[in-house]
């Protein structure tokens, strides 16, 4: 009854990489080069989406397709250019953020996404505008991929009134009602129940409100550290229980600030936790946007058809520290170099040029265009005004009557000092 497809996944070959209970000394480093893992199905690979919800292991799928014929590519030229542009936007934007931070244009905690672009682009570029995305504090690129203009995100980071959250949210609270970006959360795992709620809304609309064509999907992005948190498990349970249209995307970059995933997790293979709740669990190479996209397509389609959630573990890596305040001294340079060599942008570029999908020149044009977009975003943000005092009290309540009745009998929100922002409430 429940899809037990993951029961068909065999144990990965290289088991010795798992830390099986032996305590790690502080300086010990266990390489976790997950990309060499092969997940093989016992049953034959079913590609027909109608027949089953079996999700195939992606590395095999890609290799299969490549072996068949060179004309059977995974993407068209247009799709490839869209993916490339999105990833370059993400990378350039984050690099500019770092620059701006060190120039004192933004403050606080800023978490950059360099290196993980394949996950954001691979998933979000498959969504419709009505689908929702829920992220964590590492949310700039998710917002950009979903369609929030770069200038709105940059202004938000600068704390200006033209930011997507009017300057009130900051780096960790990117919201957009128009593009259905439902945050941006500062505490890990607290966004996952919200994503579950958004998926619940979608199901509710379809089944209770009888909006038959409502098949909105929600994507919840979070990291490996979150996968040890209770809310993660509670939501996996509820989503599988009610077959909510949600995809749980784990961006496993192996590090939660300075805590290695292997040091904090009894069973580091996060994808295995899906089947424990009755949903497929997939592990995919998160440095390859085409592989991510293949898996994402299957998972999102599954959710759209009403077959329930999927847990996708993307093995990825962040090239920078946890945040701009992180000195990033704990990670082994060899590990960093290994993943730097698997830069998703370079990989896609190579794929497109080798398969004659685009020329070097076309890609350079895109890079130039993005450079201008990002610079324009900075100019826009610089030129935007700071929030005025009057904005202080405006959005505390959707209905400002919530501030109550003052001693004079009038609602406090009717007090002119309220709109000036100088009232004490």
């Amino acid at each position, binding site marked *: 009854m429940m899809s037990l497809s993951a029961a068909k996944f065999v144990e990965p070959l290289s088991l010795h990489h798992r830390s099986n209970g032996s305590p790690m000394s502080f300086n010990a480093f266990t390489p976790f080069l997950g990309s060499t893992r092969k997940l093989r199905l016992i049953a034959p690979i079913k590609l027909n989406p109608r027949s089953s919800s079996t999700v195939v292991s992606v590395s095999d799928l890609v290799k299969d397709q490549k072996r068949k014929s060179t004309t059977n590519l995974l993407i068209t030229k247009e799709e490839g250019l869209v993916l490339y542009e999105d990833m370059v936007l993400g990378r350039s934007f984050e690099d500019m953020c770092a620059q701006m931070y060190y120039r004192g244009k933004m403050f606080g905690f800023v978490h950059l996404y360099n290196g993980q672009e394949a996950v954001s682009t691979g998933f979000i570029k498959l969504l419709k505008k009505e689908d929702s995305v829920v992220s964590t504090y590492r949310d700039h690129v998710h917002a950009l991929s979903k369609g929030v203009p770069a200038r709105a995100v940059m202004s938000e980071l600068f704390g200006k009134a033209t930011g997507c959250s009017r*300057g009130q949210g900051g780096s960790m609270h990117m919201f957009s009602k128009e593009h259905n970006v439902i945050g941006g959360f500062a505490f890990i795992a607290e966004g996952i129940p*919200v994503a579950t709620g*958004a998926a619940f*809304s979608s199901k509710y609309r379809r089944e209770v409100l009888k909006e038959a064509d409502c098949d909105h999907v929600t994507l919840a992005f979070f990291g490996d550290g979150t996968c040890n948190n*209770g809310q993660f498990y509670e939501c996996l349970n509820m989503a599988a229980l009610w077959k909510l249209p949600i995809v749980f995307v784990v961006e496993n970059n192996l590090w939660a600030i300075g805590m290695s995933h292997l040091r904090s997790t009894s069973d580091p293979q996060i994808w295995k936790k899906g089947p424990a709740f009755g949903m497929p669990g997939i592990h995919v190479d998160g440095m390859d946007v085409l592989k991510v996209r293949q898996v994402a397509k299957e998972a999102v389609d599954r959710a759209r058809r009403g077959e329930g959630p999927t847990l996708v573990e993307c093995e990825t890596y962040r090239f920078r520290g946890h945040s701009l305040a992180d000195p990033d001294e704990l990670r082994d340079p060899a590990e960093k170099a290994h993943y730097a060599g698997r830069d998703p942008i370079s990989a896609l570029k190579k794929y497109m040029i080798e398969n004659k999908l685009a020329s070097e020149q076309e890609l350079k044009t895109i890079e130039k265009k993005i450079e201008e977009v990002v610079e324009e975003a900075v100019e826009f943000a610089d030129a935007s005004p700071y929030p005025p005092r009057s904005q202080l009290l405006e959005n505390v309540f959707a209905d400002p009557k*919530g501030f109550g*009745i003052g001693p004079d009998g009038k609602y*406090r929100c009717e007090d002119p000092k309220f709109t000036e922002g100088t009232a004490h409430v």
Partner: protein
Amino acid sequence: MATLCQGLGVVIPLSSSNSSNFRLPSRRSISAWKDGIFVVRSDARVSQVLKTGGPNHELLIPNAVATKGGSSVASTSKPGHELLLFEALREGLEEEMERDPCVCVMGEDVGHYGGSYKVTKGLATKFGDLRVLDTPIAENSFTGMGIGAAMTGLRPVVEGMNMGFLLLAFNQISNNCGMLHYTSGGQFKIPIVIRGPGGVGRQLGAEHSQRLESYFQSIPGIQMVACSTPYNAKGLMKAAIRSENPVILFEHVLLYNLKERIPDEEYVLSLEEAEMVRPGEHVTILTYSRMRYHVMQAAKTLVNKGYDPEVIDIRSLKPFDLYTIGNSVKKTHRVLIVEECMRTGGIGASLTAAITENFHDYLDAPIVCLSSQDVPTPYAGTLEEWTVVQPAQIVTAVEQLCQ
């Protein structure tokens, strides 16, 4: 002069008091409910009605709200209908669910079981399992789920089986419920209602007897209300559901079986207003939830002794209705706050600060605040009784205040 409060440690146990004609329903165990219907009148006289024939019409409580002309039961021409408080909550909920298909309920055992206090009984059969959702025991996550659903267009009513369980949902209530409207720059509204029974019950033990209003009151962006009668329970439930703000509705475990006659026609109360229970001249007594009944009992004694207390049920715990309260203070110049919250950092503490800040000039005496002791509620009935404010303490406090 905080010593005034400390000095009121003398408690006259209720059971031995002269009041053989009244006994709080709470003195009996829950199984005794089956014996008949307890009727708590507005002046807190309690009697047991063995037949289901309703009490006479002198029960009508003039619930005139002092400020804006709120709907008053006494002014209706129709006879109204009688029900218990949990039925009033259910009626309010049901009416809102019929009115707006986006209203849904989520919580533990709200569906097939009908709610552990029967507030949602029958709703799942009527509206379906998705609209009255039985959740697994995961407060933090299903509260968060309610918040996510609210942000994407639904109007969920989240039930905490006991308010104390919402401590597990504190992350979601504080960070998301209260703050997301602000941190999203006003883009997403969260019209969620979080409700449940709290307060000290009948020997329920420390963890099931918590008063969470004190913990939640500092969260910006939420509103808190406490209902105390079937009339205001239904009105506040409807108002909370219709509100665009997140509202936490505090009910009390011991008040679910209160009976009252409420209007047939639809009414919605204001979330921000307080309720004048008994106008008076000598002293303002501010209270909410169950303590309202202790205060009314004490008021009876006080009236016999020649005092004229003004009793206000503040109803809105956050924000305070400073207009009603202020008018009262300006009239009587003496304030007594009676609450079930803990001494430290409770609603009474905040209310004391608010009144002192705004109406200091009008006070003839320092504000007296009677709260529960800062003690985990003991299981033993005698000890439990001493942690909660009893009518005799209220009487003594008023007498000392009015000297």
